Each structure stands twice: as structure tokens, then as C-alpha cells.
């Protein structure tokens, strides 16, 4: 069994940030952390983080050519831990290698944008954020690489790799109805039970209450896909790629015909006759005039919450929250489905 290993400029020993523009490079055998992989590495391919980010198709072209020339059983990328540019390069390269029939194993933190870039194609070992984890991660990546090549990755214990967005069918004796009733009876009786599906999200502590909204700035945020007429930023109907902000500072209401919803997950015609049914700007302005609300941020923050990838949703939420914090907003009124 042989592998090709992908590293960035730092782990290949080319240098640190100053070498981030390193053009693609090919080295024989294993280099740096690759030497601790428990798999034969016939070649190591390298690219600088910035070069990959800025010259993606050139980088991919060269790297994939070298990888394909080796005819490896598996491509191993990273581990990138929390390094975003490196993780992105790993995830993208892995995805493209898989498209060309070469299985890929990566290692990175579950929130690394490289996870999204891999788009379910690669087997990604979840790691911590810091490089200190290297010694523990490399054997997990080697083991997974062996499992992938030998066709037994899917039977690895949960947590061996990040969910790839694929479901594997398994047969079980009892029907879902039987298992659900048993689980409910156990729950009612106070007996222990194990849920079959876990929501993958962290618990956020309850933010402290505001002393008084009359002295605060609030912002209007929505996942109902509310946008100005004709959707100038092309907000998606589903699988939103981003969020947008729209200047509502001069508006007392969202007028039908000036604003609309592009959300593809529910029937929008009721809302489009009065977009305030999704973002209640008319009521907010009335309460603001009466002094119940101190200030309202001048922008509506909008995205579409329809089949939005969880990782993206988290990212949008964090980005919007960060923006609101920077401008002194104390609370967000978030409306949607």
C-alpha cells in the first residue's frame, strides 16, 4: 500500500508565513510529519498556503498531476488542525483527488473551513486546534488510511472520522416504530436510553438579560431570506452561501414590492404581500418612536435558513454576532421559520 502526502510550506520545512507563497513542490518519500505516518509514502507534495488560496486552479493542476503519476492507494493531507488556509487546501485537494478516483484522508479541526471544502469526499480525522496534538493524530490518520484502502472505513467506531454527509444502510431486527416506543417507555419510566440521533451542536449559555431595551441598540436579523426586490446579491433559495446586510435606516416598514423573501422552504406569497410578517419593521419602528426601543441598527442582516449546512449556519451566526458586537448592538431580534 502506498500513499502520497500533502503538506503546506511550514510542515514541509520551507519556512513559515514568509514562505506562504511557496509554489507547488514535489519531494521523494516522506517529509517532516510524514515520516511518522505508518504507511509507505512514495512522494510528498507541498504548496504554500497563500499560493493555494490565490492560485487554486494552477496549484491543483500541478499537485494532482504529481499525485496521479504516483498511482497511490490513498492521498493523505495534513493534519492542518485549525489552520484555515492549510485546511482549505487539504480539503479542496482531497475532494479533487477523490473525483479522480484516489481516496483521501485528512486531519483537521471540525470547524476548519477545509471540512466544508472537502464536501464529504474525504475521510477527515477530527483533531484539536493546536499542533501539540500531532503525535496522537498521525497514527489515527495512518490507521484510517489503511481502513479506507481496505474498504472497512465505514465500520470504524463513530468519531473515527467526521460525518461525510452519507448514510450507510444497516439492517436491524426491530423496526423503527418498535425502537421508538421502547425508547419512549424507557424515558417515561426514568430508565436509561440511548438516542439514535444526536444534534451536533454546542450549547450556548444564556446571554445576560438587558437592563432595558429603551437604553439599548437592537438589530434585526432574519433567516427568512428577506431581500430587496430583485435580490441584488443573489441570496440563495436554499443552501445559502452567505448572509447580506441591507440599509433599512430610512424605512418605517418593509413594503411589499420593495422587499421580498427568496426562501425556498416555505410558501412566500403571504409574506410577500407584507414582508413585515417576516421582519416586523413596522412594529419595531412604532415601538422605537414610543421610546420602548432605544435604537435600531441601520441594517437588516439576512440569510436563507433552508438546508443551510450546519457549519455554514454556525459561521454566519458568528460573523453576524461579531459585526453586531463591534457596532455596539446589545440584542438581536431574529425572525424566521
Amino acid at each position, binding site marked *: 500500500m502506498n500513499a502520497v502526502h500533502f503538506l503546506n510550506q511550514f510542515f514541509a520545512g520551507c519556512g513559515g508565513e514568509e514562505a506562504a507563497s511557496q509554489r507547488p513542490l514535489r519531494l521523494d518519500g516522506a517529509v517532516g510529519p510524514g515520516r511518522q505516518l505508518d504507511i509507505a509514502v512514495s512522494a510528498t507534495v507541498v504548496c504554500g498556503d497563500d499560493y493555494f488560496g490565490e492560485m487554486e486552479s494552477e496549484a491543483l493542476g500541478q499537485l494532482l498531476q504529481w499525485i496521479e503519476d504516483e498511482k497511490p492507494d490513498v492521498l493523505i493531507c495534513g493534519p492542518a488542525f485549525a489552520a484555515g488556509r492549510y485546511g482549505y487546501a487539504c480539503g479542496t485537494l482531497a475532494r479533487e483527488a477523490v473525483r479522480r478516483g484516489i481516496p483521501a484522508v485528512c486531519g483537521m479541526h471540525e470547524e476548519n473551513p477545509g471540512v466544508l471544502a472537502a464536501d464529504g469526499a474525504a475521510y477527515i480525522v477530527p483533531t484539536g486546534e493546536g499542533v501539540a496534538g500531532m503525535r496522537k493524530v498521525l497514527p489515527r490518520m495512518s490507521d484510517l488510511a489503511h481502513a479506507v484502502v481496505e474498504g472497512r472505513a465505514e465500520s470504524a467506531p463513530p468519531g473515527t472520522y467526521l460525518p461525510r454527509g452519507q448514510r450507510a444502510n444497516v439492517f436491524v431486527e426491530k423496526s423503527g416504530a418498535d425502537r421508538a416506543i421502547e425508547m419512549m417507555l424507557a424515558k417515561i419510566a426514568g430508565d436509561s436510553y440511548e438516542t439514535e440521533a444526536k444534534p451536533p451542536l454546542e450549547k450556548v*449559555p444564556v446571554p445576560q438579560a438587558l437592563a432595558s431595551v429603551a437604553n439599548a441598540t437592537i438589530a434585526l436579523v432574519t433567516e427568512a431570506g428577506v431581500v430587496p426586490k430583485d435580490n441584488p446579491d443573489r441570496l440563495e433559495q436554499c443552501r445559502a452561501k452567505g448572509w447580506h446586510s441591507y440599509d433599512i435606516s430610512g424605512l418605517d416598514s418593509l413594503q411589499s414590492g420593495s422587499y421580498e423573501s427568496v426562501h425556498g422552504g416555505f410558501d412566500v406569497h403571504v409574506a410577500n*404581500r407584507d414582508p413585515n410578517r417576516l421582519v416586523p419593521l413596522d412594529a419595531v419602528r412604532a415601538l422605537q418612536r414610543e421610546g420602548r426601543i432605544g435604537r435600531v441598527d441601520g441594517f437588516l442582516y439576512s440569510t436563507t435558513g433552508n438546508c443551510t449546512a450546519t457549519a455554514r449556519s454556525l459561521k454566519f451566526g458568528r460573523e453576524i454576532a461579531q459585526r453586531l458586537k463591534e457596532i455596539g448592538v446589545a440584542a438581536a*431580534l431574529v425572525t424566521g421559520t
Partner: protein
Amino acid sequence: MLVTALPTIAVMIGANRVVRGVAITNPTGDPTLSAADELALKRTIVSRALEMMEADVPPGTVWEVKGE
């Protein structure tokens, strides 16, 4: 703070302050009402949300628009 007609899902995924909205197609409105009545409803919903911003609540709390 979230206004949604699907508060169970919101709480399940970790939302802490939730006001139950009217319907999926119109969380903060009601097309069966007259314009005046609908505006009054919108004010009530927003006021409830503002009250919730000013309230200490346990994690995953859902308030109905009226009462509590």
C-alpha cells in the same frame, strides 16, 4: 432572541430565548386580520420579544405571545 413558529426545533438545537411565532409563512403577522389588527398583533409579538430580552430565563425557554 428568536421568533419562530417552530420553537421545539429551535430549542433542540440550542436557542435560549424563543417567542412562538404565528405560523411558518408569517411568524410576525396574520393575513386573516385587518391591517390595524395585524399591526397590533405585530406590536404585541415584538413587545413580547423585548420583554424576553430583559428577562433572566433558563436555557431553552419558549414564551407564547400572550400570557406566561
